[in-house]
């Protein structure tokens, strides 16, 4: 599947260094499938969850104004920590089709790309403006054009960035890598044959 645009309403999730333990608590890794993970996003910090004694401010994921959002807006180093793919899987299954933020952890970025969930970056001030805009007007539709490298929301446009390889993979539909890696398996064997440890030295 080719992914060239992402369009929809957005959910702003403020904070730097949001780790994957927060996005998807470890107890939900206790399963042999990814089914149902969308129900547990940020569970420990959301209203009505086990974190009853947490600050009472409503969590963005519980705010009905953002219901149905297909884009997530985040700040710096989003998705750091554990390599659990359960975090992007939960987001994808909850209907998110893109994440826009100041920066991402590498493993989270790769885990998202490989399931067709683009993570694009924008400048600090642009993210601030986007978040403010969406907070004021949650039904604003955001449109990200991966090829043009732009993000548009009703009259406001900013540049977005994405490594060239990720953009190419998304727009050509090559983000699901296994097929690509198996494509010329003879070359894999050739590399294995030149590695002294493969044959036990």
């Amino acid at each position, binding site marked *: 599947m080719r992914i060239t645009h992402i369009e929809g309403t957005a959910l702003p999730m403020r904070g730097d260094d949001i780790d994957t333990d927060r996005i998807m608590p470890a107890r939900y890794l206790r399963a*042999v499938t990814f089914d149902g993970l969308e129900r547990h996003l940020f569970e420990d910090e959301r209203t009505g969850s*086990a974190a009853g004694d947490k600050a009472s401010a409503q969590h963005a994921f519980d705010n009905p104004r953002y219901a149905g959002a297909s884009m997530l807006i985040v700040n710096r180093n989003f998705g750091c920590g554990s*390599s659990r793919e359960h975090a992007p899987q939960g987001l994808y299954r909850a209907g998110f089709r893109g994440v826009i933020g100041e920066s991402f952890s590498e493993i989270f970025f*790769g885990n998202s790309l*490989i399931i067709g969930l683009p993570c694009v970056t924008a400048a600090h001030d642009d993210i601030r403006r986007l978040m403010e805009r969406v907070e004021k007007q949650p039904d604003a539709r955001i449109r990200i054009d991966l090829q043009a490298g732009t993000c548009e929301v009703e009259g406001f446009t900013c540049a977005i960035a994405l490594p060239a390889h990720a953009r190419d993979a998304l727009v050509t539909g090559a983000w699901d*890598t296994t097929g690509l890696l198996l494509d010329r398996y003879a070359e*894999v064997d050739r590399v294995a044959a030149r*590695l002294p*440890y493969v044959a036990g030295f």
Partner: protein
Amino acid sequence: MGHTLLQKVWDLHTVRTLPTGQTQLFIGLHLVHEVTSPQAFDALRARGWKVARPDRTFATVDHIIPTRERTRPFVDVLAEDMIAALERNCRDFGVRLAGLDDDRQGIVHVIGPELGLTQPGLTLACGDSHTSTHGAFGAVAFGVGTSQVRDVLASQCLALEPMKVRRIRVTGMLPSGVYAKDVILTIINRLGVGGGVGYAYEYAGDTIERMSMDERMTICNMSIEGGARVGYVNPDQTTFDYIKGRPFAPAGDAFDRARAWWTSMASDRDARYDDDVVIRAEELTPVVTWGVNPGQSVPVVGRVPSGQEPAVAEARAYMGFNGGEAIAGMRVDVAFVGSCTNSRLSDLREAARIVSGRRVAPHVKALVVPGSASVKRAAGCSMCLGMNPDKLEGSQVCASSSNRNFKGRQGSPTGRTLLMSPAMVAAAAIAGEVTDVRTMITQASGTRSLKPEA
């Protein structure tokens, strides 16, 4: 111009440049465990694929292993399902498994090295972010997610972006009571939790060269907490001595050939680095985290920062600390020595040396969970991530030798974690509060010097 170990390993393992511009990299060793693999095996089944190189794949169970009751089937049906799935998958796909009753079982990052599977110059992947641990041997080791586990199972390859190399040179003698854990916590504090994104960290300098393999593993393990997906130390005599004689290590003449090749893979003297950082070991002190990421730490003689920046204020509020409060003297409820960062025999010994002749404070629950069955039975991840019954309760404060102080990490959504070295955990267990382990070392006259072994 010479090359770094990373460049040499990368070039040698490159299959081709993919149409997307990424590198298709051959993976020399794939370590598999129960939590991040079931969906990957199912994907192979769905498409009728085989495991490409069972000979380069090795599985164990760790994350979900109960510390106490280990009879099968487990009382916990979810845990039982996961273990059963891995057993079935390994059987169906012909993958070697060090299962629950195998004396080789343990945390994947502890047993890879113990078995001699982890070796210099190879590429290694595992569905766990602390795979960087294996870099201590001069391997280039990547933590990956489940879809990438699927890629490696099916093709023995990963699609990756080239990375830059930052050399971090640690020089000088570590003061008594200051450990590898303090070195890496200091590095993360200085360079930031996102500072390593896009980089591999090469740990060098005489302090690192004098370190044992266990200490190097502690350092490489936490590379990812600094944002660096890969961390490594160049292989040397210490590395070779560790590997020699292990079950999967080359033997006899093959070992000599291996050593020559391993040596040739180390970074050249005139290698070019994208960045260079120097850390002076003499200046280091025991370090404790006060916040909710591993970069939020202070020396044990320091104070919780009083800044009003949102990240600092929020972390302080979660931890229940006041700005300006001394970190020493913080009451702890639980003391945990374990995890793939610090659960090796030398870590347990170091903690035991502090505890010897003393008693754990009555209000403290102390838990020691070895990293592998060869360290002791009942090995696993345990309270590092609270996937088995060992969890914090309520807002308990835990002095922990693990690697993550994220909110909720140790199993209670409001639990609080203070990261420190195993010796500092032992000191906290005895005092019942955060304590400078150096004061206990001077009290315990006659104990052996705590300097890292040469």
